[in-house]
């Protein structure tokens, strides 16, 4: 049904290695890649961090020379014709490649000059793109002063300026809230439709598998290898009739996950809102719901992530240690009353109150700049509130910060352990800083290395560890002192789905043992694991409830079965509209 079209790019026998640092062996970033990039569609380059997505895009842009194999773009070998190719491609690097000290207009004019666009073409093109992205009112603003979503749109405008035949976007949606992500997709789809006559094509790299479902074609990368090269439907096809939702009684979801994961025939079990999502092994018979700890199984649509996990092959799920019981104190773990924070004239947090019960996983969601990280930082004692009260683990962070901090653990979004120290040295440092006695230090470090599967990498320098291991190490470090409350800031962004499942399984276990967990995220997947969510918009708390509650609030005839993302967008949108009115 598809007539043969000339591909925009062909990649044959591609391999790329980076020379290793002084002691390390050379690292193979990509190996054995054969594929073509077709016009008229968005090709998703999909995979977790470190899979080789950026390397592949840089190779396509002619910024790297492949170690082996050929890349031809527009039929021209990149080794000889890089300059010609650069006239016809648009490339947006991971951090958008904007000059932050230039204005929006300044950045656009620079790219227009670089592409030597005559003003007869330039003027209408720029105004069209500014209108399409909604950046027109901000042309005089410095690029550095734009929000994440706006920077990304500006990067996109710069890349699209010269009507590129091939648009290369390197993780444009990282760190951007769901509403901005949807807008971005709409803009790119619009531009693609507009450039269809020219035979334009888009390559979109992303770690979000849900977003990749919208691509015309997906290149699934894992550890430098091409796992799949097909339409999303084809990748999900083998999962049909293998995905089910299990109803579980409230409060038993996490126990049920453990139970379900141990049942033969179950490839994967994860929490999804108030259900359990069960993926069966190929050919496995439908198990009895009660054997899984639930009451009713209903079929569900497969996701790209299921296809990814399936193709990764079944790795034995990491055994999750049973929860250690710990004495649970009385009263709420976190209590926030009328919290306010001003930065100059700007009201970042406006009269926020909520409380979190012990052993609860509580999520703070919100668009960029809504104030969720300000709340989060005040709760960890990194920032002083302007007014209001914040009690954490029964201690007052304002009056007794050091004592209160001793009872909380913190894991930042960015890996923030000491890269030049080994895993063991990092753990030992944090054990000492938390004032553990010598014997307790040794016991805690040894236990952490064993529990978090870090024994093999204990003496490797932390900076060289793969992302998934780094993330386990960071979690281990934040738990050494057995904190009552754990703060997580987008803990699993960019981590591959298997590692993410394992991570959340651990968090579930901790919560069962009585540890309170506070998460901020704009990653809806992460939100699904929470018991309760609070949505923050423009500094105010606009909704609190279980994921099912929030979905229920936006259910309508037009949206009979809303996802959490739909709920988020609808609630935030309604709030913004109400304020504007």
């Amino acid at each position: 049904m598809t007539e043969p079209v000339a591909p925009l790019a062909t990649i044959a026998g591609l391999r790329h290695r980076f020379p290793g640092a002084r002691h390390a062996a050379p690292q193979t970033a990509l190996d054995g890649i054969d594929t073509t990039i077709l016009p008229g569609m968005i090709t998703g380059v999909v995979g977790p961090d470190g899979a080789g997505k950026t390397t592949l895009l840089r190779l396509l842009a002619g910024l790297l020379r492949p170690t082996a194999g050929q890349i031809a773009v527009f039929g021209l070998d990149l080794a000889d014709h890089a300059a010609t190719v650069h006239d016809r491609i648009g490339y947006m690097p991971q951090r958008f490649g904007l000059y932050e000290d230039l204005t929006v207009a300044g950045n656009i004019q620079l790219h227009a000059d670089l592409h030597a666009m005559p003003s007869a073409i330039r003027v209408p093109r720029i105004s069209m793109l500014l209108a399409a992205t909604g950046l027109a009112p901000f042309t005089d603003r410095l690029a550095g002063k734009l929000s994440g979503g706006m920077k990304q749109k500006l990067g996109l405008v710069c890349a699209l300026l010269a009507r590129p035949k091939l648009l290369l976007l390197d993780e444009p949606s990282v760190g951007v809230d769901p509403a901005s992500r949807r807008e971005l997709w709409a803009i790119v789809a619009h531009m693609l439709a507009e450039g269809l006559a020219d035979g334009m094509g888009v390559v979109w790299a992303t770690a979000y598998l849900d977003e990749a479902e919208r691509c015309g074609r997906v290149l699934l990368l894992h550890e430098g290898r091409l796992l799949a090269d097909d339409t999303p439907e084809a990748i999900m096809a083998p999962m049909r009739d293998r995905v089910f939702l299990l109803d579980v009684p409230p409060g038993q979801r996490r126990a049920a996950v453990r139970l379900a994961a141990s049942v033969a025939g179950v490839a994967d079990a994860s929490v999804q809102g108030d259900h359990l999502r069960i993926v069966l092994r190929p050919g496995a018979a439908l198990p009895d719901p009660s054997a899984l700890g639930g009451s009713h199984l209903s079929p569900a649509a497969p996701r790209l992530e299921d296809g990814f996990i399936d193709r990764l092959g079944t790795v034995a799920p990491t055994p999750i240690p049973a929860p250690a019981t710990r004495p649970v104190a009385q009263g709420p773990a976190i209590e926030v009353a009328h919290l306010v924070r001003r930065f100059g004239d700007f009201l970042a947090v406006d009269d926020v109150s909520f409380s979190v019960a012990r052993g609860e996983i509580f999520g703070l969601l919100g668009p960029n700049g809504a104030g969720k990280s300000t709340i989060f930082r005040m709760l960890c004692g990194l920032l002083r509130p302007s007014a209001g009260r914040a009690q954490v683990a029964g201690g007052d962070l304002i009056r007794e910060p050091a004592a209160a901090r001793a009872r909380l653990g913190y894991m930042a979004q960015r890996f923030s352990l000491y890269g030049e120290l080994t895993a063991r040295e990092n753990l030992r440092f944090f054990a000492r800083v938390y004032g553990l006695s010598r014997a307790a230090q040794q016991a805690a470090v040894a236990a952490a290395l064993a529990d978090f599967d870090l024994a093999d990498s204990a003496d490797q320098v932390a900076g060289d560890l793969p992302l998934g291991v780094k993330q386990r190490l960071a979690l281990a470090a934040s738990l050494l002192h057995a904190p009552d409350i754990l703060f997580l800031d987008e803990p699993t962004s960019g981590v591959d789905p298997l590692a993410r499942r394992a991570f959340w399984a651990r968090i579930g276990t901790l919560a069962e043992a009585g540890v309170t967990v506070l998460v901020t995220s704009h990653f809806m997947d992460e939100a699904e694991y929470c018991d309760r969510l609070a949505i923050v918009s423009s500094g105010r708390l606009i909704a609190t409830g279980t994921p099912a509650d929030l979905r229920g609030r936006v259910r309508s005839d037009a949206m009979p079965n809303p996802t959490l993302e739909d709920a988020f967008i609808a609630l935030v949108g309604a709030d913004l509209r109400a304020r504007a009115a």
Partner: protein
Amino acid sequence: MIAAALRLRGLLVKEVTQVRRDPSSLLIAFLLPLVLLLINGFSITLDARAVRLAVVIDAPTAPTQDLFQAMAASPYLAPILVATTADGARLIASGSARGMLVVRQDFAETLLRPQRWPAHLGLQVSGTDPNTARLVEGYVAGALQTWLSSHALENRLLATPAATLEHRYWFNAELRSSNSIIPGMIAFVMSMTGTLLTALVVAREWERGTMESMLASPARMAELIAAKLVVYFGLGMISMLEAVLVGTLVFAVPFRDGILPLLAAAALFLLFALALGLFISTLVRNQFLASQLAFLVTMLPAMMLSGMLFDIASMPPWLQWLTYLFPARYLVSILQTLFLAGSVNAVLLPNLAALAISATVAVAATLAVTRRRLD
């Protein structure tokens, strides 16, 4: 061709805007030279003045009194009368005096009887600072000579010395050290602004990821470099002129002759320094390392190995050879000559040629290391 001109225009506009918005580059270009020149100009003065000298006189008499007055009359000495050599030694040890002149009991008597000549004077000098020690010795000898000749005229004691040396200082008759140091400081300031400015800007583009989008655009590498050179060249020349003005107006250093050679030398040196900065930051792509390297290969040699402060001819031979590798020495030669002597072709031509070669090599090296790729 039009395309290239458009690209270059775009890049120039970008660089100029960035410089205008970035306070740190304006700070490095205009404030830092001023501050450095003022502080260093005032603090590095090698002419000792009023050195404190302890004087021990065992038997005060009219001639020794007269001797002490003669010491006090010298503009370079501030004699302090102390009772014993032990007191004098204490002053020297604590740094309160640089030396001690000991006039023994029999001094005056011996001096009055030519048949018992010579009379002996003891001079003890603290050698911790050898340069000052030598100056002190010279000042004391000079003061004594003056005293002796005025005395000799009264007492007819003295015959004409067998040989005398008259000296004439050329180009800097009063021997003001700031006249020599300020031209050298200008060279120092220029190496610093030149290299530091560019060493940081390219590294910054790598670190912020903007270089990646430039590389994927149709801009040619030579255009990227040219745009940076042009803008920072302008800044550097302005900061050079600022330094020349401060030198001539604040420190009253004369400028004899040769605006054109000055501009030529400054331009060539700046081209070298800017290209070196680009070379460093392209090579290391990291602002931290870039600034360390810039310090090591430009500021340190400009201070130590350029002849601005320390005499190159007095260094060990291997170090003298090394100084030829750092163009600061050529610039210092040219500047000291232009300021104090004027356009002397015998100095200007070889040094300008050396600067031209350095600039060419630096630019060529920069073009050679900048590739269009990330690997």
